[in-house]
């Protein structure tokens, strides 16, 4: 089967400031694809180009087999888009918003109710409340329900979990997994690296450049360096000491320990313990760990900057 999204050499600049540089990407049908990167990386720009809201300066792309410029009308009937900012009518009620979008797509709430039932049933008790008066999490649920009301083939979500409480965040990801089972391709952007593990494949984007596109396991497997987790009672001093060592590439805080990437594949945790012997660290310990996706991203991003 053909790819759900194919992107070839997309470039986009705002007033000569490049926002996207030579983006090449494909998304397989029925997968949850995560676009991960810090604020200002170009995530929203890419999503807006794919949802036909913005024209790229150069390059082509197809969504659901349709060209984003020539067949934009087809795309608009077959994708759902949930913008990062709440963009429904705040002065219409929950039900009116749902009805409006259902009618625009020539369908009814009842027709696709099963698809949105999980989340819509949670806001249904408030269906006569104006959308502007909903809490952040409920707004998010309403926005997702509206984006799904016409049973799109591909769903775009722009930072759906930014500013959302942990429970709603989990509910949202559960929902995305359910949509995947329904055969809907999900293209989601986020600034939270830990959400990468919830995606089938991820693309890491920074400064408009794709740093890596792979499955989470693939990205972790391609991390070839040795990663040592070092611990002591004085984390702050420990980081400084580690960075002074000539066989350490970088050291950064990670939870309650310091993750240290070694330059030299010969080196190991014992060399670190040896080197720090005379620095009076209390409860010093070090052990090699398997990198998490966050370690990989930090490494990729810092190499990109350097």
């Amino acid at each position, binding site marked *: 089967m053909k790819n759900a999204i194919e992107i070839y050499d997309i470039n986009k600049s705002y007033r000569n400031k490049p926002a996207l540089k030579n983006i090449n990407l494909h998304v397989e049908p029925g997968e949850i694809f995560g676009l991960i990167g810090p604020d200002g990386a170009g995530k929203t720009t890419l999503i807006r180009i794919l949802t036909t809201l913005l024209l790229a300066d150069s390059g082509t792309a197809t969504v659901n087999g349709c060209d984003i410029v020539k067949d934009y009308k087809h795309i*608009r009937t077959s994708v759902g888009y949930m913008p990062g900012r709440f963009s429904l*009518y705040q002065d*219409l009620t929950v039900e009116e918003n749902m009805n409006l979008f259902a009618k625009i797509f020539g369908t009814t709430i009842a027709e696709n109710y099963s698809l949105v039932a999980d989340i819509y049933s949670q806001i249904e008790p408030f269906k006569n409340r104006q959308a502007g008066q909903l809490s952040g999490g409920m707004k998010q649920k309403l926005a997702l329900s509206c984006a799904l009301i016409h049973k799109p083939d591909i769903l775009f979500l722009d930072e759906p979990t930014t500013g959302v409480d942990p429970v709603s965040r989990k509910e949202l990801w559960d929902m995305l997994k359910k949509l995947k089972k329904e055969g809907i391709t999900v293209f989601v952007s986020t600034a939270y690296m830990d959400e990468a593990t919830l995606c089938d494949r991820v693309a890491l984007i920074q400064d408009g450049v794709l740093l890596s596109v792979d499955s989470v396991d693939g990205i972790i497997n391609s991390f070839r360096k040795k990663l040592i987790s070092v611990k002591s009672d004085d984390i702050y001093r420990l980081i400084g000491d580690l960075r002074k060592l000539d066989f350490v590439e970088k050291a950064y805080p990670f939870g309650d320990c310091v993750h240290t990437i070694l330059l030299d594949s010969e080196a190991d945790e014992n060399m670190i313990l040896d080197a720090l012997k005379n620095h009076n660290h209390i409860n010093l310990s070090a052990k090699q760990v398997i990198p998490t996706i966050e370690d990989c991203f930090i490494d990729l991003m810092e190499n990109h900057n350097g």
Partner: protein
Amino acid sequence: MRRIRFLVIKEFKQIFRSRAMLPIIFVMPILQLLILANAATFEIKNLNLIIVDKDHSQFSRDISSKFRGSPYFKILNRTFTNTEAEDQMKLRNVDIYLEIPVNFEKQLIRESSTKIQIVVNAIDGSKGSLAGFYASNIIQDYSKDLSIKYGIRANLISPNTDMKQIDVTYSNWFNPNLDYKTFMVPGLLVLLVSLISVFLSSMNIVREKEIGTIESINVTPIRKYQFILGKLIPIWILGMFELIFGLVIALLIYKIPLLGSPWVLISFAALYLIASLGMGLFISTITDTQQQAMFFTWFFMILFIMLGGLFTSIENMPKWAQTLTYFNPIRYFIEVVRMVMLKGSGFYEVRLHFGVMAFMAIVINTLAVMRYRKTA
């Protein structure tokens, strides 16, 4: 078509749900017509007058009482010297003073002619000229009285004066009593409809941009023309409602005559609203926030209103300003409203206005839609 209907319904829901809209639609027209129609008057009453009476004769007293009887003047004082009158004028306490010279009566009887000086404070030009005009009317009136009262008696006044005099009288067509309300109210009606339509359309569309709802709409299969029509049709309906509502107020409260057919008026308003909605749409394409849209709209509306011929007659404007008014839709609407209401003009008489307005509607809407495509 179905989609446009949903959008129109949605728009009406939003309009009537917003707290500010109902007062704007129902209270604003009534207030505007009640306040402005009574306050924006061109008549000037209670002009402060000082009479410098140096003659102290029967005649000079007669003139004084003539002025006292006029509703236009309020006699502040009577003095014997110019000094006080001049001082008061410098202090802006007095609008006009009248100097009756020494031997006024004597000269009038002996030589049948004399002079009276009128000094007018012309800081406010139109007020000053009106004051002068009213005063000379009263004095002319008085000279007529003289010939009637004293003319036969002993030939004291030269018989020539009243014989050769040309008496000018006026007949005011279309507004026989020169009632300024008849003249103002139809114009105010036009302003009302213009304000409502341009402001609502420009701000309403920008609002979707500002709040971001246009993003949600743009990814749907709704076409641009459907979106625009969905926005403009409700405002067009509101505008027509306002016009008819205001018209009823004008007819019932102010008893403004409606000599022509209301259908001419209504069909012209329908066309005019298309043009003004196009203007609102255009403004919405060049702005990003409601605040910007409001400033833009104000800028244009002030220009159009001031050059519309309601507050300043177009014939009195300098040539270049008169040329500018040809590009002003409000000018045409005010003319049509006055022609139809006061003169009873039919379609045939205002056909040119219809033509110009149709042309304007096409041009501004084409521009707006072209720009709209480009930006969004």
